[in-house]
């Protein structure tokens, strides 16, 4: 395809895509379930936390550093899909897009809060090229969707990743984006 024609096609496509986006309903107004993001102790239990609180990066078993987050759910049951992402608060850069997780929520979760036995590991380091990921606020966003990709629930949590003092040098190395 001639380059000019390809460019024109692309522009048309983008413009149509933009138009469609504008007409889409705001799906967040129709949420039917809830997620609340919190922390855990030793990977277990749900503990609410404040936005922007410090959280020490944990040593991963294959040489990485990660943050543990415990989400809990209410208002949905059965098979649902959890999508997790993380962005830098200061410039919005995406620093993590985790593969979709399949959860099988028990019937109890329809009426009351339910969480998994273990917290979810959020891969932080090694960081993407050129991005420092400690002493810098990161906003984690979890979205719960059904099999038709309909958004059921959404929550965000801002944390300040900190390097553990006992492996600070290593942490700075793998979390600096170098």
């Amino acid at each position, binding site marked *: 395809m001639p380059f000019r024609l390809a460019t024109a096609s692309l522009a048309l496509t983008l413009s149509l895509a933009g138009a469609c986006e504008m007409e889409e309903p705001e799906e967040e107004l129709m949420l039917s379930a809830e997620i609340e993001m919190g922390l855990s102790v030793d990977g277990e239990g749900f503990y609410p936390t404040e936005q922007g609180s410090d959280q020490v990066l944990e*040593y*991963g*078993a*294959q*040489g*990485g550093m990660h943050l543990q987050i415990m989400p809990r759910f209410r208002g949905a049951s059965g098979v649902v899909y959890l999508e997790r992402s993380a962005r830098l608060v200061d410039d919005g850069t*995406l620093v993590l897009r985790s*593969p979709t997780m399949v959860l099988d929520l028990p019937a109890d979760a329809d009426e009351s809060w339910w969480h998994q036995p273990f917290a979810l590991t959020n891969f932080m380091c*090694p960081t*993407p090229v050129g991005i420092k990921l400690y002493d810098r606020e990161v906003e984690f966003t979890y979205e719960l969707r059904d099999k038709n990709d309909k958004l059921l629930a959404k929550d965000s949590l801002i944390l300040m990743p900190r390097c553990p003092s006992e492996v600070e040098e290593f942490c700075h190395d793998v979390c600096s984006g170098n």
Partner: protein
Amino acid sequence: MLRTLSPLLLSFAVSSAALAAWHFQAPQEAEACGCFVPPDPTVPIVQAGERILFGMKDGEVTAHIQVQYAGAAADFGWLLPMPSVPEMELGSDELFAQLTAQTQPKYRLDREYLGNCPFDPSRFGQGGGAPSNDSAGGESGEGGGSPLVLRDTLGPYDYAVLRADAKQPMLDWLDDNGFFVPAGTEDVVDTYIKPGAFFLALKLQSGEDAGDIQPIVLKYQSDLPMIPIILTSVAADPDMGVQVWVLGDDRAIPRNYHHTRINDAAIDWINAGANYAQVVTDAVDEIEGHHSFVTEYAGPSSIMGEILDYQGRFGQEAMLAGNTGAVEFVQYLNNNGFPLFGGQGPNGFNPTFSPLILNILQASLPVPAALLEQGITPSDYYWSIQYYLGTYRQENPEQFVDLDVEFVAADLARDLFERVVKPTLAAGSIIRDHDYLTRLFTTLSPNEMTKDPVFSFNPDLYDVSNIHSGKLVYHCQLRNNATAENTPAVLTTEQGFKIVYGDGVGETDSPDAPKPWSTVFMPQSSYQEILREEGEPEVVADNTDEIQSALNEARGDSGGCSTGGSSSGAGALLLLALAFLGLNRRKEDQA
């Protein structure tokens, strides 16, 4: 004290020949990869490359790892840090052979003949004429203080999972239990020693030989796949190839490595990209730290088709076991997809069994020694077993004095299904379970193995074809007595660069002659980029103008890119013709 013998780690093929899959080679050749260099225990054993297929689904990583080893069976050992206790299964060599074959970069030329070219194949009807360049290019139960978590056997392997929260107890346990650890491991293993971490250690069971080594499959919980390349640094070749396939929903990216698009004007198009691996090596070396990957294929996983697990392949174990005669048993294998076909043989095809199948068959139905001495390969023998045990044996009974066809069909069938059929079908299944396949490649020397590559995904990125097309135009109107070798020609690469062969492409036929792509001093990468988990690539360096300038300069200096001789009159005319035609480089790289 540690016995610093063979390590092993993961190993990979680097060159296109090595990557070209076992079914085109004799098994002895396939194993003679030179991955390891025993026997001095103080010298780290060297591996030539690594090949891994990662599948990502529901927070679980499935890693198919091909282990290549060419030392003594007793010296084989393998270590891998794990984030959790893994599930472990046997893998399939054929998976890697087919992945390699289907996604291998290929450089092809469309040829155009301007003027009265006597070597234009269309003048002679089909066939003949210009050489074909369609061949593949490129690369060518814990107890006490013991760290033991579990120990078991799987196929030919004896394996153990050890807690890695302390280094010395783990290394001592490996030493005490005959799991060899390569020299230098103590110095680099610290990165992976931490509470909650594990190591998988692998060795061959007693009685197995190196030919029994087959890929393994590990399943473990993790957000993203990672290669523990730092650990590999103790036993790696310079510029070791690292070949990774990632299955997922979207195109995979190297999260903490740069991304390189190679300069395709540096590719030896005339010889189907024979220098591809070297171009990649030089291109990634242009990045500071040499930490960069090239995407060789990104697109639908359907490129693999149903090669591994097509309907009816392998038949049924019970039916195979019912063939109690040697000829009938092997014929069942021949008729049910156990051998593969490729290469050139007397009948136009060349059925070949994998080294693993050959090893299994040899253990029960060995090839008579006299036949091997005559150069009859095991694959030839099993494929034509009816002939060899029939007519040929009647005519040459002296060659069968050691013939042994006593075997237990049920046992042999079970072995084949456990070690060959199930892993191959499972490999086919993981391909079909994921929509998208990405193939990435880099080379790293031991001193560059300072950062473990992690892979992530970006749904916004474009597909990358492994098929690359250039165009070669012969200008026969510029020369009398034109041949394909001496006719001035212009090659336009896929990225739009133009290489002028003022004295004809024949100048590349002599191995000693300077090559246009090697005598022009230019960047080997066209773009150096950072791939994020969303959005378009971030271009760190765009070398296209520099490449074009270098090509222009070379063209001006010599009437062609070659520096091997003086400018010819035809070459100068070709330059004028080029100018007249107003050929412009298309700047856009082919995505």
